[in-house]
């Protein structure tokens, strides 16, 4: 019984990790309707910012998280102003190609500055090891992930999805011309939304680095996972992304425990099934 509960908990923690990783893209795709694969690069950047802060400048881990957010947010706005804003009205595939190009460039750039190897960093002692909770032995970092993930989800759902700012962004995306003529400063709103999306991606990267490792190929390695989570959840609904993360996370961990012979196929099969069953995702908005 304890084993089952531990596995379940691990699945939930993994689910939150997937959520944290994907939420940046979820915001940019859902709110901005921009297929910004470069979010994966911002994740990586957040990870590297965290490592640089903690390892080189001795910043405590917790304090390095906002740094990761800000670094990625700044980079995101920069890229938006320089490149992406010229592509709001292009089709999905053009955006995919453009941002894929940016991902490639980021990989080479990171290799140039930080080298090709995996980054080493040590978590503070209080985040490592295991804790006894209600008779279960749980990994400390996973507990931390669950708490942070839940907090983040709550913040975003109530602070972004259900607010006027969220509606403004979606209005600008639906029709930039009309939104502008209705008095919305589309440039500013877009930049703001990109900052939030990029920052979240950076935060996700910083939190994920411990479990997933961090090297220049990080964006390519996790791109598919991120895409899967966001689409299964339903474009741009943060609650959907959370639901998809939790569902696929638990399914994955439970699957590996009970049916290890199925290997990695479970998550893909689940994706195919969900997308055929509900083409707009678990919580997709449009009818």
């Amino acid at each position, binding site marked *: 019984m304890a084993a089952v509960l531990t596995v379940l908990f691990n699945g939930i923690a993994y689910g939150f990790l997937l959520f944290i990783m994907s939420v940046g893209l979820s915001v940019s795709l859902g709110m901005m309707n921009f297929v910004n694969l470069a979010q994966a690069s911002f994740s990586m950047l957040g990870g590297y910012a965290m490592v640089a802060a903690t390892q080189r400048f001795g910043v405590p881990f917790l304090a390095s998280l906002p740094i990761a957010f800000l670094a990625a947010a700044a980079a995101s706005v920069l890229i938006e102003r320089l490149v992406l804003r010229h592509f709001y009205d292009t089709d999905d595939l053009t955006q995919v190609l453009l941002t894929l190009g940016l991902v490639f460039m980021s990989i080479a750039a990171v290799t140039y500055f930080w080298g090709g190897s995996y980054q080493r960093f040590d978590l503070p002692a209080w985040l*490592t090891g295991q804790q006894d909770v209600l008779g279960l032995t749980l990994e400390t970092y996973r507990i931390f992930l669950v708490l942070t993930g839940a907090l983040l989800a709550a913040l975003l759902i109530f602070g972004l999805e259900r607010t006027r700012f969220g509606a403004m962004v979606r209005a600008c995306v639906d029709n930039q011309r009309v939104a502008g003529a209705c008095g919305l400063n589309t440039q500013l709103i877009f930049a703001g939304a990109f900052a939030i999306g990029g920052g979240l991606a950076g935060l996700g990267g910083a939190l994920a680095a411990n479990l997933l490792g961090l090297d220049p190929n990080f964006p390519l390695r996790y791109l598919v996972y991120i895409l899967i989570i966001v689409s299964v959840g339903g474009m741009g609904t943060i609650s959907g992304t959370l639901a998809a993360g939790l569902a696929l996370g638990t399914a994955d*961990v439970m699957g590996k425990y009970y049916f290890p012979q199925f*290997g990695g196929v479970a998550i893909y099969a689940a994706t195919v099934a969900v997308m055929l069953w509900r083409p707009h995702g678990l919580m997709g908005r449009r009818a």
Partner: protein
Amino acid sequence: QESVKIGLLQSFSGITSLSGQQTDGAVKLFMKQNGDTAGGKKIEFVRRDTTGPNPEVARRLVQEVVTREKVQLLIGPDFTPNTLAAAPILMEAKVPSFVNGAATTGIIGEKSSYSSRTFFATPQLCRPLAEYAVKNNWKRVFVAVADFAPGHDCEKYFVEALAAASGVLAGQLRVPLSNPEFSGYMQRIRDAKPDALFIFMPLGELSIGILRAVSDSGLKGSGIKIMGTGDITDETYLDAVGDAAIGTITSGIYSTRHESELNKKFVREYTELNGPSPRIGWTAVSIYDAMRLAYDGLNAQAGGKFDPDKFVSFVHGRSFESPRGPVTIDKGNGDITQNVYIRRTDKVDGVLQNVEIETFKDVGFK
């Protein structure tokens, strides 16, 4: 002055770019120590990026360097599928090659009699470790391998050797190649209550991930011995694993800590030349040894026109002292016989190292 062209086909980009960096490092060091001529001919390199296990590209590049660049010797391509895809061309064009970064058995010899291997063959690492485990009374072993051909290979040899040494298979599982999450597997291993866990994972996210998971989940602290082929504690990735790697028992062909004058010189000069990062892994040694065989082979036919058949018959059957220890290239098929070391990962002077604790001498490639 006459020249000899050597093709250098390695992965210089992408996930496997570190081996490319080591290749460059080793070549640079060797040239510095031995000059840029061999057998009176100037050495020129044709360097191409295989971009990882990508047989279609590798084959085309081999075709290109052989038919257009007209290289006489080839170091590479790396990875088993690349090697296999290239073999027929090398056979037909009579271009001797040195295989490294590909460990599958049987890819040297009948597939291409012009090849020699300076790397290692999978059973070379798996069998000694099984014997070592049983000898130390870790009888019930759980086997976890990556779910792809090399993993299946390794699993086969290890389980065979374990049975031969009358050990017991406590359970086994195959981990998919793209797998960011191990906790379900960890629980499964814990449930099986083995004495030891044997791991084979390719270098990279999986090798790092599993050692971290073993440590984070508390499996390591619970008395289960963690062991595996040297991939999981390869020096290039060891620091990224961090303290989670300490205490891991691995079998390997080379450690920077290997006690020999030749190795100390090798490590010192390599580091001076290429800097401390990335650390020296077994790719560097494998390339370094390939360079030495190439030079020796060319020197042996100094003055004459390059003759691939003579070259191969000179290289096959050769024994020499490598930084890793004594090495013999098989006379029959060009595969490699070498010492295999059982190492324990420890922190030495604040740096994670693979410390050799036992030596299996002259282990064959079968």
